């Protein structure tokens, strides 16, 4: 028997649940299928950074719109998800890096972000725990953090309150385009018909795009992360070094969380994201240099996640170029958490209004019809050998 709905979302990560939320809020019928549990993959295990400075220049309109959603979580979904406007300190170790910071800051300011330039003296005054190796920094006060373990399930609950239907442990095994839209078959043998499909299946999304003749060189990887035991709370902003060796934040209960590059390939088939112990050790050494007072503190656990990466290090967001009614939103290259709600909003606008006011041309899947330039970030943020590492 075939049931019908208007939109089917494949993948219950942050993007999928926010798309469901905005569609349901506008009274649209929406069904979300999640092969595992809502928010259990990279949406639930990422670092939790809502970073605005240092983003890809084309991403600012989307990014700022998304931050606006994060800033209103209690009004929108009835839960703050530990959102905290902590600010973000971007750190440079040498003059080359300091120049990069200046260039990033110029881009951020052109989008009306308030960015402060800090020299060694002002770093010492404002953030006395930062080590001497950091010679310059920029501070962005609007940057924030939120708890990734809570955000996706909480948004899913709010979407359901507006009428979205979500089914967990239900893989979409086959998606067929028909003249009336789509037929989606599930692992449990049900068939759903719908007018629109959103492919927000994270690291598993490229397989779906491929079925519609849109083959992109996505691969799965994740950053090594660790968390320390709780120590007295004093490191308020997120601290990030521009070389990516340290992305750290302390949560008010005291634990310090660290993510750092290079990233490691994940095993999609086995659903595993190993953390090589050597990377943990490298992260420990790097963190003690940036925040020397943490040297005596203990690491209690490591983890990683399964994220989709693309060689140009920006996501695919937008309509399919082969199949009307199909929308892709995947390949967030490790920076999807901050823009996730905004992407969900734009997807809902495409479906309801046929367009979105946010410029997203740079993220179209069509760019992969020609050879894509490999991003500098891609070269520096992965193990030697890139995707094969």
């Amino acid at each position, binding site marked *: 028997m075939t049931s019908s709905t208007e939109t089917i979302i494949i993948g219950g990560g942050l993007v999928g649940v926010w798309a469901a939320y905005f569609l349901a809020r506008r009274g649209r019928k929406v069904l979300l299928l999640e092969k595992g549990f809502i928010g259990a993959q990279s949406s639930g295990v990422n670092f939790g950074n809502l970073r605005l400075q240092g983003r890809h220049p084309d991403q600012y309109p989307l990014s700022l719109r998304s931050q606006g959603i994060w800033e209103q979580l209690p009004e929108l979904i009835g839960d703050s998800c530990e959102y905290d406007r902590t600010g973000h300190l971007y750190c440079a170790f040498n003059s080359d890096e300091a120049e990069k910071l200046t260039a990033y800051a110029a881009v951020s300011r052109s989008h009306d972000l308030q960015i402060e330039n800090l020299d060694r003296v002002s770093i010492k005054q404002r953030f006395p725990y930062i080590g001497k190796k950091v010679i310059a920094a920029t501070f962005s006060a609007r940057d924030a953090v939120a708890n990734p373990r809570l955000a996706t*399930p909480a948004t899913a609950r709010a979407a359901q309150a507006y009428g979205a239907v979500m089914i967990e442990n239900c893989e979409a095994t086959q998606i067929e385009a028909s003249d009336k839209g789509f037929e989606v078959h599930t692992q449990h043998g049900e068939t759903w018909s719908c007018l629109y499909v959103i492919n927000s299946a994270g690291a598993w999304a490229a397989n779906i795009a491929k079925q519609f003749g849109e083959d992109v060189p996505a691969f799965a990887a994740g950053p090594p992360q660790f968390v320390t035991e709780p120590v007295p709370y004093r490191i308020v902003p997120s601290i990030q070094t521009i070389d990516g060796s340290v992305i750290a934040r302390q949560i008010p209960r005291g634990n310090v969380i660290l993510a750092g590059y290079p990233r490691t390939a994940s095993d999609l088939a086995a659903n595993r994201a190993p953390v090589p112990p050597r990377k943990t*050790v490298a992260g420990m050494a790097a963190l003690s240099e940036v925040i020397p007072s943490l040297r005596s503190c203990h690491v209690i656990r490591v983890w990683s996640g399964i994220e989709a990466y693309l060689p140009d290090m920006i996501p695919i967001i937008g309509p399919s170029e082969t199949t009307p009614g199909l929308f892709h939103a995947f390949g967030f290259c490790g920076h999807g958490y901050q823009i996730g709600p905004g992407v969900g909003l734009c997807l809902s606008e495409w479906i309801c209004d046929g367009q979105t006011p946010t410029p997203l041309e740079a993220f179209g899947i069509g760019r992969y019809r020609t050879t894509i330039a490999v991003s500098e970030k891609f070269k520096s943020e992965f193990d030697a050998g890139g995707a094969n590492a």
Partner: protein
Amino acid sequence: MPTIVIIGAGPAGMRAAETISRAGLVPILIDEAPRAGGQGYRTPASGISIDTHKLMGSQSKKYQQLHHDFLSIVSSIDYRPETLVWAIENNTLFTLSHNTIATIQFDCLIVASGATDRVYPMPGWTLPGVFTLGGMQLSLKDQGCAIGKKVVLFGSSPLLPLVALQYKNLGVEIAAICDTTGFAGKISALPSMVFSPGTFLRGLSYLASLTLSRTPLFFGVKPLSIEGDHRVRGIRFLTGSGQEKWIECDGVGLGYGLKPETQIADLAGAVFEPDEDLGLWLPRMDQDGRAGKNLYLAGDGAAIGGADAAEASGKLAALAALSSLGVYCDAKQQTRLQNTVRRLRAFQRGLARAFAPPQQFAETLADETVICRCEAIHAGTIRKALALSHTPPEMNRVKAITRCGMGRCQGRMCAPALQAMIIHHANQSLAQTGRLRGQAPIKPIPLSAAGETAP
């Protein structure tokens, strides 16, 4: 020459090291503790004088024999005490010793990581003066200290009478022994007890000796609370007939049997299976303890079997490893040891059934009880989270949402309680409930250790 690494210098690891050494190889024996013996056969800290013979009672001879045999080979093995294995990647162990991180490559790994107490929290269980039964024993064996002057032992464990006897022999007053299982439960476990009647009789003789010396014994009790302001003042419980009882004491030993410490086996790639009967996820292994290619598990860290089984399974794993490496083979002894290990573990399984954890635990537990002491997560918080949609009744998801099991001990202490609460909430099997996955570092490691070496 192949490198065989043994993790854990308790009876299983010590016997494995001895067996490999006698075959002409030089095993690396890694142990977290400064002195060999594990938990059960621990030797006192230096400068502490304890009458070990009196303390070990009927086990004294085995204890002495084990340490004597180990002493005869220790100079011909690569023994590394005070060393923690915190991560494993392929055939590389990452260790921490004296604040230095190092790596060890191995061809074959024998994990003899021992067991820890299984604890079910009750209100007040985090008060100073409350210990696990195993912890109580260790403070005696290692430091010659009792946990209090007047002690109550509470739970369901064959250790209850044993520890009581050890404390009594050293002059500590045992205010009561409170067993949450009834006497009937023990009788029904008898069929499998006949596998090792000697051990069972020894257990009964502890009880008899306690009874004779008028220690109050309660069967079929239900926990209410441990109370006190800054430390334990007493314990409140319901007797088998349902009467509330308050007993004053300054120490409480809590324990509901043992559970294997399986984190290292997990990191080494062992496959885990639910044992619905025991309520534990256990590593899959063959009768030699082989849990993977060049991976062997021995002792209570593999399956609870007690000290005798640990010694035998340590020898057995070593023999199997030597034989598969083509170094040495003694098929006859291997078969004999397989039989011994099987018999002793079957007996322990019966014992575990006789001392089953309290059935009503998850249902009756007060909301304000701390479940995860590392993260200070209360039973009520877990119940509230479970009641929400998108909290799937699965250990790792509930951990992610509530933080229960996320702290320093990685759920070693709270996992049995969390598991019981999820199973009760969803009315499902252990298999459906899942298990907390082991993650490096299996015990906390300081950032400063990274600065002193580049592995």
